[in-house]
């Protein structure tokens, strides 16, 4: 399948300014020049999206129409605020545990219409065609009482379509927000997401991402994060049930004493393909970044971690760490890791490591001598391998919810 978008697509956007129209056209032109990224591009060398899409889709239409729904069941596991997105659009929200004057949530509108060169053509595609999304702002000096779950629901109407959606989160000075990004999908479709997160001075954002079930979703997200002085960003990524998932995350540590943590515990099964690509830019002194990516790979699954740490000359006393560990359950699985350090300051602490290997037979033997079957023993070992990432979560109720979700996927192990 040859995926090219005709310029008439832009004409379908009726109520946009000329400026926005020009912005979209310019981005579309760029996208059509490059097309879907293929492994010829360094950033995509382990993920040939062009081939993946053409092998799995006979046709792919751009998503236009949306629906409304009201009959949605929220989780009962713990008290939370929520935002419901339906096919990427803001459907409803509830902040009953919070002071609503401190929170602003609305449909996404593009304000920055300056064209920027980007190495990732999917970002251009997103700029050209985005139809929906949300924008969330937290006022200064406000700490959320409860976590916010973002229910990312995709209906059956998105089958064989590509959705381009955006979201923007701004946490103002001295505020703290905890999110759980919870995807619920049953369709075979492509979701191309663009995210912008800004953390003002001394603010904190903690985000947990996970999928409810296994699905035929093909997800790509470009995430741009800006961390100002003293701010902290924590991202935890859990078992992706998606057929394809690539996260391309960039974090600019703009101010001193910033902290950026990215940790992942992924159990990939049955031809799933998942890539985490990060670029952490240490641009000011005394900043910290910590990345730990754990993959368990089963039956033809493929996992990739490309992590780059950039340290600018003025960013002295940078403390940057990255580690990836993979556990391969079969010979038909694949894990690729490409760590990269680019350092221009001389007083820094940077380290990286990557290991991958099979399950240790001796460990299995030990567990089996205690009466556990091979399957049960393997599940215990897999769970144990991923568990230390779950343990990062402080709230016990949320931890239990995440662990049982992860276990459910591991217990599918045959």
């Amino acid at each position, binding site marked *: 399948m040859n995926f090219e978008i005709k310029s008439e697509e832009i004409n379908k956007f009726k109520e946009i300014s000329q400026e926005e129209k020009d912005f979209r056209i310019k981005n579309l032109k760029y996208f059509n020049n490059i097309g879907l990224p293929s492994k010829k591009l360094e950033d995509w060398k382990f993920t040939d999206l062009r081939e993946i899409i053409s092998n799995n889709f006979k046709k792919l239409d751009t998503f236009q129409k949306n629906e409304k729904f009201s009959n949605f069941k929220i989780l009962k596991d713990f008290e939370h605020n929520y935002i419901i997105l339906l096919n990427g659009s803001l459907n409803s929200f509830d902040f009953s545990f919070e002071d609503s004057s401190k929170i602003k949530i609305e449909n996404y509108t593009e304000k920055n219409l300056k064209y920027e060169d980007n190495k990732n053509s999917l970002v251009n595609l997103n700029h050209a065609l985005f139809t929906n999304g949300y924008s969330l702002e937290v006022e200064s000096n406000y700490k959320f009482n409860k976590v916010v779950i973002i229910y990312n629901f995709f209906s059956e109407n998105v089958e064989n379509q590509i959705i381009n959606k955006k979201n923007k989160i701004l946490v103002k000075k001295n505020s703290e927000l905890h999110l759980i990004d919870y995807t619920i999908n049953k369709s075979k479709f492509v979701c191309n997401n663009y995210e912008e997160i800004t953390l003002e001075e001394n603010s904190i954002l903690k985000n947990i991402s996970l999928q409810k079930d296994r699905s035929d979703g093909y997800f790509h997200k470009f995430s741009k994060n800006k961390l100002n002085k003293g701010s902290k960003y924590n991202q935890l990524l859990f078992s992706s049930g998606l057929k394809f998932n690539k996260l391309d995350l960039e974090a600019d540590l703009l101010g001193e004493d910033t902290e950026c943590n990215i940790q992942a515990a992924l159990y990939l099964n049955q031809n799933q393909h998942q890539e985490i690509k990060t670029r952490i830019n240490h641009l000011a002194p005394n900043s910290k970044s910590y990345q730990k990516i754990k993959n368990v790979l089963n039956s033809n699954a493929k996992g990739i971690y490309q992590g780059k740490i950039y340290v600018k000359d003025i960013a002295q006393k940078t403390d940057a760490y990255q580690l990836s560990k993979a556990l391969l359950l079969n010979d038909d699985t694949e894990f690729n890791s490409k760590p990269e350090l680019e350092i221009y300051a001389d007083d820094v602490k940077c380290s990286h490591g990557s290991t991958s290997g099979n399950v*240790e*037979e*001796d*460990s299995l*033997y*030990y*567990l*089996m*001598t*205690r*009466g*556990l*079957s*091979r399957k*049960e023993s393997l599940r*215990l*070992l897999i*769970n*144990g*391998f*991923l*568990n*230390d990432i779950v343990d990062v979560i402080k709230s016990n109720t949320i931890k239990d919810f995440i662990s049982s979700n992860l276990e459910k996927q591991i217990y599918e192990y045959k």
Partner: protein
Amino acid sequence: MLEIKNLKASINNKDILKGLNLKIQSGEVHAIMGPNGSGKSTLANVLSGKNGYEVTGELNYKGENIKDIPIEERAQKGIFLAFQYPLEIPGVNTNNFLKTSLNSVRKAKGEKEIDTISFLKLVKEKASELGIDEKILSRQLNVGFSGGEKKKNEILQMKILNPYLAILDETDSGLDIDALKTIANGVNSSRDKEKSFLIITHYQRLLDYIKPDHVHVLSDGKIIKSGKHDLAKQLEKTGYKKIQ
């Protein structure tokens, strides 16, 4: 309880056990001593069903030849192996593991699964009997445990799973005298007419605390001498060379 007949075992075409015969009655404690490389650990592994060995002969356990039965089924039938080098299992909570393990043994016996409260009560009771700090049970299985803690944890697992036949593979190696007493106490307090023990050791030191009914000397894959408790004492004096 256990009758081993003409047991031969090889690994990677190397013969290790070369026709071993041994009979253990219910209620008996047997000790197997022998120099390095005589096949002691192989015997423990073959009894528990470890993969990778070419095995011939008979392993009659409670009237059934278990030679071709998988590892976990042997465990469920009441065979327990205390490891010489217990493995560290990161991320797996010791208590959760023990509960899962106990329940799989109970299920195989047709018993009801134990609930968490009764399980914790049982663990507490057994741990205090052995003088083991319960705190280690809320840690990851053997991770960061000292040598002594690991061995004590093996004996605690033995007490909780309550096997008919317990094999202790050099459980005494690397232990100080207090830990050695804990281990011995664990075995002695479990001794009864329905249970048997096979204690594999280098030194007779442990046998000062656990008095075996029979002592065997294993050399080059065969039992070359059997006797009563005083055989261990004799070995300590003369070494293995004289007997070989």
